[in-house]
């Protein structure tokens, strides 16, 4: 490439036409105006949000704090919190898009108000965001926060890599957000099948935005997987044998293994599609020996394990929540572990069920159909284990427990419709209808999302030192559950009535009533999101009445509850020695909890590092340059990435020491608080008397 080609035109494909309102101004037809207003409105909300955040941070002079305490932090707890914050921001956008789509379909008899092009962008961004930038960061954040605490570790093995993963994930999310303002996103759905997404049919920037957002996120998840597996394998406290690990850690392990092995096919599929689009290769094109089935296979070899990456951590959270709020040890721990592992392994053997109708022989379809149905067995084991855990337990219907019970009922239904779809014969009838849409939302929303929300309520007091408002949490949970049922149960019926997925408008009047019900459900889900925001606001406002500094508000069973809330930077003043499953419950029952530590030692922790935010920013610049063909930007950013990586290899002074005296002081303050606190019974755990010290309901033992 000559120098002239690199700098001319300096902004690549960027022009005024890339702005969302340009077409509306040039050709003010009614349809253009409506869609232009929606797109411009969305872009304005995003820009306004950015300006307001910028102004507020500047006004309160928080840039320094943001940089030193958060963005450059290598603390697994802070990185975890940042991941969850990212997930919430992205969820707001994806949920509003969902509501817009439901509105369009509700009024879609013979037209509706959204153009087909715009509708296709909506379902593509909704799916892409929900999977890669809501549930993935959410679960990565929760694992980051809770897993090292559960295994008695002070850090993940590679703290700087952890920060880089966050940087790259945030870069991918930002890229999707930028597509709202500049240019258009892909219209190819979240799995963007070629040849539709090839340059012949889609010469614009949409598929490129999608390719590079997924690539950034995929790279980040590969690193995260490696990091978590190493951590769980090598950083466990003495005595924390594999079969003593809390179940959430087990699911984190399985999810991380899946991340390690399932992300490479995505990376390859994205790279090959990019080579097709940018350099005229022929992987998936119609002519010259390209074969789009290669993409379909690669994508679902990633895509199917991916859905278990999404759901396994939530299974872990339900296991913790159900055991804790039933006051019992988890029923069938070993069978839970085996079921989790079985699901992880089976997840690699079923990818073909995503395209039963794409030309394989009946025998191959049968094999994959049976393999898909087999997954129902370990999942069923889990359902029974959770129910037996509750049986004759000391059950409290707190918010996480409401989500868990809602999950059990709804997930069984979603699983049942999955078994139906796993039959190739049935699949031929209902594939590509909204029956499928109902099915995967039925497993993804109650399965993955409810679990993560339960985890958010469960561990929030641990992370911030005060409980969330129970009342607003309950409002939100009920809205979520009812909203979900109203939004998706009608889609089962609509699917059987023949409504194809991704339909922008239809001519069949009998669809309208059910579409209206689904729209109502979507509004309820938006209300649920609103209630979550109100809850956060109310809880922060009343935080002083709900402090749980002692750290054990729910009579928890695993090690994360054995430290103060929020935990100190170093998590554990002294690394605990584990002798049993449910390590903290064992300590409380034997009277060994809240012991004054003997002599504390200096603790070595990783220093802050600007590497994560730097590589995130560089990754965003490379991706943006690639999308818009701004070659000088791509080249300079790539050089910067190499230079940054090399110079980080020359860094030496990467750890800091927390002096023993400081550890001792902080420990004494916490022990004194525990001694002064009143232990509360389970009946009072949602009252402000709960200071985080749990009464032991066993005779002769007190905390």
């Amino acid at each position, binding site marked *: 490439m000559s120098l002239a080609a690199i700098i001319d035109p300096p902004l690549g494909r960027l022009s005024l036409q890339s702005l969302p309102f340009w077409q509306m101004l040039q050709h003010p037809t009614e349809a253009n105006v409506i869609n232009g207003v929606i797109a411009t409105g969305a872009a304005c909300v995003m820009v306004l949000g950015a300006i307001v955040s910028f102004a507020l941070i500047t006004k309160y002079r928080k840039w320094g704090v943001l940089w030193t305490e958060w963005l450059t932090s290598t603390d697994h707890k802070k990185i975890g919190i940042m991941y969850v914050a990212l997930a919430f921001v992205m969820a707001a956008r994806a949920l509003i898009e969902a509501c817009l789509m439901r509105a369009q379909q509700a009024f879609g008899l013979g037209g509706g108000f959204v153009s087909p092009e715009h509708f296709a962008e909506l379902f593509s961004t909704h799916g892409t965001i929900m999977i890669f930038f809501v549930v993935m960061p959410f679960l990565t954040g929760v694992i980051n926060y809770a897993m090292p605490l559960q295994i008695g570790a002070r850090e993940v093995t590679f703290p700087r890599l952890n920060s880089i993963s966050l940087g790259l994930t945030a870069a991918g999310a930002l890229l999707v957000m930028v597509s709202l303002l500049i240019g258009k996103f892909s219209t190819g759905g979240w799995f963007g099948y070629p040849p539709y997404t090839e340059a012949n049919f889609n010469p614009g920037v949409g598929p490129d935005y999608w390719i590079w957002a997924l690539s950034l996120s995929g790279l980040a998840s590969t690193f995260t997987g490696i990091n978590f597996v190493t951590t769980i394998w090598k950083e466990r406290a003495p005595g924390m044998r594999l079969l003593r690990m809390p179940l959430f850690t087990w699911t984190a392990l399985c999810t991380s293994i899946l991340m390690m092995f399932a992300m490479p096919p995505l990376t390859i599929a994205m790279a090959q599609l990019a*080579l*097709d689009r940018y350099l005229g290769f022929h992987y998936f094109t119609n002519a*010259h020996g390209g*074969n789009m089935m290669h993409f379909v296979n690669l994508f679902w070899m990633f895509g199917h394990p991916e859905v278990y990456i999404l759901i396994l951590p939530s299974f872990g959270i339900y296991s913790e929540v159900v055991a804790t709020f039933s006051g019992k040890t988890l029923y069938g721990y070993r069978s839970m572990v085996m079921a989790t592992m079985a699901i992880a392994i089976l997840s690699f053997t079923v990818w073909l069920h995503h395209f039963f109708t794409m030309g394989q022989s009946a025998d191959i379809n049968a094999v994959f159909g049976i393999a898909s149905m087999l997954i129902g067995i370990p999942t069923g084991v889990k359902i029974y284990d959770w129910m037996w855990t509750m049986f004759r337990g000391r059950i409290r219907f707190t918010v996480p427990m409401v989500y868990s019970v809602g999950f059990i009922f709804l997930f069984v239904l979603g699983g049942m419709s999955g078994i139906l779809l796993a039959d190739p014969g049935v699949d031929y009838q209902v594939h590509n209808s909204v029956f499928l849409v109902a099915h995967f939302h039925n497993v993804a929303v109650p399965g993955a999302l409810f679990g993560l929300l339960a985890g958010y309520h469960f561990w929030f007091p641990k992370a911030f030192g005060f409980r969330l408002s129970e009342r607003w949490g309950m409002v939100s949970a009920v809205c979520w559950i009812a909203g979900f049922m109203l939004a998706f149960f009608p889609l089962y019926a609509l699917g059987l009535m023949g409504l194809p997925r991704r339909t922008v408008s239809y001519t069949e009047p009998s669809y309208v009533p059910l579409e209206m019900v689904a729209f109502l459900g979507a509004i309820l889900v938006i209300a649920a999101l609103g209630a979550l925001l109100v809850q956060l606001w109310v809880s922060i406002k009343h935080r002083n009445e709900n402090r749980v500094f002692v750290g054990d508000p729910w009579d928890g069973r695993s090690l994360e509850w054995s430290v103060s809330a929020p935990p100190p930077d170093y998590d554990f003043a002294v690394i605990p020695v584990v002798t049993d499953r449910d390590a903290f419950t064992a300590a409380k029952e034997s009277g060994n909890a809240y012991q004054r530590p003997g002599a504390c030692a200096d603790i070595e922790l990783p220093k802050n590092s600007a590497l994560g935010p730097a590589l995130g920013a560089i990754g965003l610049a490379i991706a943006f340059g690639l999308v818009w063909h701004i070659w000088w930007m791509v080249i300079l950013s790539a050089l910067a990435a190499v230079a940054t990586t*090399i110079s980080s*290899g020359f860094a*030496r002074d990467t750890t800091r020491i927390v002096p023993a005296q400081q550890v001792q002081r902080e420990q004494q303050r916490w022990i004194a608080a525990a001694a002064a606190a009143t232990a509360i019974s389970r009946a009072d755990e949602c009252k402000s008397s709960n200071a985080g010290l749990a009464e032991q309901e066993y005779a002769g033992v007190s905390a």
Partner: protein
Amino acid sequence: MSQDTIKHPGLNLGCAHGGDHDAAERVMFGFWLFLMSDAVLFGMVFSTYVASLSATAGGPGPRDLYNIRSVFIETLLLLASSFTFGMASLALKYKHGETRLIGWLTVTLALGVAFLGFESHDFVTMFAKGGAPTRSGFLSAFFDLVPLHGLHVTGGCIWLVCLVGQIARYGLDTRVKLGIMRLALFWHFLDIVWIAIFSVVYLAGLA
């Protein structure tokens, strides 16, 4: 060395290295995981290649394009570089001194660069014979697999230069040692991948 002092699969530092030997355990485990993930990456491009063998779309095929002599020389170069890196690892483990270590690393680098030179020459020849990746699905798949390995080797060479730079700057400290051990694994891994490429792409292609 007794069994319990082996910290990870592969050549260990050994107890004579004290704390560095212990520190290797976690880092090397993480790197083994990375290699497993990378192996899946290669597995995917191998399967794309095999599935695209017949997709020549009327363009040139393996017999028209591959040159077994050149590829055989590349194989010998890469195998020799694995041997010399092995000598470097032994120099590190038995503390033969920085000069000898850097010497073996330099020989390895020279062999790696020579390999890349031959490989680039192969590609240029293929282009000249009409074997560009835009010609057919088969050639796209070829240029996904073989250059991906070449890119890995290039990355390895850059990493090697950086490590020599780190030795010059810091001597053989913990991070340098762990870096050399990881690069060693990486280098041998690429050797194994090349064996697979040599067999699946070139030998099977010309058989």
